[in-house]
């Protein structure tokens, strides 16, 4: 199948696959958010199925890739009723419509999206980590039709693999899928994910605040200098941030509004996060642990326990599929990760925190004004309303930061200025959502909405 048909076909399969699973879990949200979350979930499920082909000895070829996508859709047929209910629900939502003030944002976003897609299509894979790991393994997976390929067996690379070829497999598998479709040298799917995630952020912000306020926060997010650079670079961090943020978004909404299907759906994205980056299970355990009391208040202790156990359980299953099963049963060589583990020490932990704050978190050249704006809004919120942000969202932000600091402490390979800098990709969108959800901003937003309605009528 030519690449110009192959890509839309596979994306359609992802949409149906993901939509069916989320529909079966009972997720009900807006059309835009449902569609985007469905594509992300579909990408994750397809990559798992394709990986499963390798586990059972089916050669990884274009045929098996397309067949695994079709199989994924066929597997969702028993969920037809719930999928139909989801589509019916989406049809009942009246179109949101756009305002005059949305036009410049849509126009500018279109231009930025074009540049992201162009760059991710035009440029070959560039980052060192991707050339030495993700794309190298993907290239020879296509050549040898298996992930257990020459990269892990050729004498010239014996003892030279370090940890890049052993990175959590989602990014590598997506790269294999794209190469089999016909996009052999670029990372076009990274651009697709970045564009969809940007639209997701805009839609999520518009649910919280007036479209003008949402647009301003969305522009701050879209143009965040460091994150923008990774919208067309092949790395594991951006896509992992996408999964973590989608998971936290659903978890937060589910817990605050006591909607169980949102919590169940968040498990899909947390599992995908553990499938896309190794330290994710640590962040998920911390986040679920620290927010457990809130979950208990919303759903009762038994249901909350079941929810947390499910989220952590599925995350560990996806983590173990690669890091335990595949490493120990299938791969002829092991990563040197164990050698890179250093014992926890409070001194090093403190150093990592200080270094992260001074060299990463507070740098305006990396994150623009988002971190400072978050601090200012939090301070003003406390002064004006005697309360901070949404407890669940703030706790998740703290959990992610704590997880990154712990990872930076116990992994000698985690360098603050590189690994933890890219780890901030998970935090920045959450900061933007927290700013929008703050009482200060929602109050201001309500005043703008009331003023607009009063003056236009």
């Amino acid at each position, binding site marked *: 199948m030519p690449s110009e048909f192959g890509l839309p076909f596979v994306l359609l399969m992802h949409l149906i696959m993901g939509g069916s699973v989320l529909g079966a879990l009972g997720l009900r949200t807006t059309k835009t958010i449902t569609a985007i979350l469905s594509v992300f979930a579909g990408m994750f499920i397809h990559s798992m199925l394709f990986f499963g082909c390798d586990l059972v000895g089916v050669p990884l070829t274009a045929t098996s890739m397309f067949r695994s996508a079709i199989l994924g859709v066929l597997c969702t047929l028993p969920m037809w009723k719930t999928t139909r209910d989801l589509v019916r629900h989406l049809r009942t939502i009246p179109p949101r419509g756009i305002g*005059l003030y949305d036009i*410049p944002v849509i126009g500018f976003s279109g231009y930025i999206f074009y540049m992201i897609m162009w760059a991710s299509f035009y440029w070959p894979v560039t980052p060192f980590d991707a050339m030495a790991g993700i794309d190298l393994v993907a290239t020879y997976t296509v050549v040898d039709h298996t992930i257990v390929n020459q990269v892990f067996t050729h004498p*010239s690379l014996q*003892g030279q693999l370090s940890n890049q070829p052993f990175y959590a497999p989602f990014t590598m598998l997506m790269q294999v899928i794209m190469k089999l479709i016909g996009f052999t040298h670029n990372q076009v799917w990274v651009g697709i994910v970045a564009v969809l995630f940007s639209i997701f952020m805009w839609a999520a912000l518009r649910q919280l605040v007036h479209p003008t306020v949402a647009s301003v926060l969305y522009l701050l997010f879209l*143009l965040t*200098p460091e994150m923008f650079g990774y919208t067309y670079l092949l790395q594991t961090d951006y896509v992992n941030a996408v999964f973590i943020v989608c998971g936290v978004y659903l978890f937060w909404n589910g817990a605050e509004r006591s909607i169980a299907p949102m919590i169940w759906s968040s498990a899909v994205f947390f599992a995908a996060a553990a499938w896309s980056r190794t330290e994710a299970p640590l962040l998920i355990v911390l986040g679920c642990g620290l927010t457990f009391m809130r979950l208990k208040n919303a759903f009762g202790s038994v249901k909350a326990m079941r929810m947390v156990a499910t989220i952590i359980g599925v995350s560990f299953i996806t983590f173990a599929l690669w890091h335990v099963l595949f490493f120990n049963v299938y791969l002829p060589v092991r990563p040197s990760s164990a050698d890179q583990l250093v014992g926890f020490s409070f001194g090093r932990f403190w150093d990592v925190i200080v270094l992260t704050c001074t060299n990463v978190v507070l740098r305006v050249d990396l994150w*623009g004004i988002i971190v400072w704006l978050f601090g200012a809004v939090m301070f003003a919120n406390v002064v004006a309303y005697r309360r901070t942000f949404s407890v669940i969202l703030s706790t998740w932000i703290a959990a992610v930061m704590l997880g990154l600091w712990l990872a930076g402490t116990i992994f000698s390979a985690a360098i603050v200025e590189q690994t933890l800098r890219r780890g901030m990709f998970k935090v920045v969108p959450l900061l933007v959502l927290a700013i929008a959800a703050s009482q200060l901003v929602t109050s201001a937003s309500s005043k703008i909405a009331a003023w607009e*309605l009063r003056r*236009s009528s």
Partner: protein
Amino acid sequence: MNTERPAFFSVPAVYLTAAVVFILLLLLGPAINDNPYAQSYESRVELYRSKLDSLNKIRSIRERIFMRQMANLSVAEYIDSKLRPTDTLLLPPQAYAKRYMETAVTWTDPRILTWLIGFRNVVAWTDTARRKHANAFIALEPSSIWITRPGGQTNIDSLIHEYEWSR
């Protein structure tokens, strides 16, 4: 949030549109000193936009890789073209190559060399177990590179010593 839909075109909508446009221009414009958004936009969007036509004319994947990898690709291609079937090439340490190259040196890593030209019979400098089997070596000088073999004009022991010394 209020779900009542205001009119598409109204006086408040015009004010709010102007506000959004103003903030967008402020973010992308040079009005603020050391504006990180403007700098990032300039280097990641405007730079490519201004060269889009000329960049799009470059169809060859090799040329696009060269634009990103520069001398690393040239060196890898040189190695590929000069390597004999019987050669086992010792890749020099990165520090040795750094002395002669202005761009960031990555080709000395066998994984990067493999990504650039495919699997070849090479030995990494850090592979101390297989290093003794090498029978071809990279010699660098300012603006020149060659593969040398035992019995050739270059003294292999001196070259290895230089490799070690450069670390």
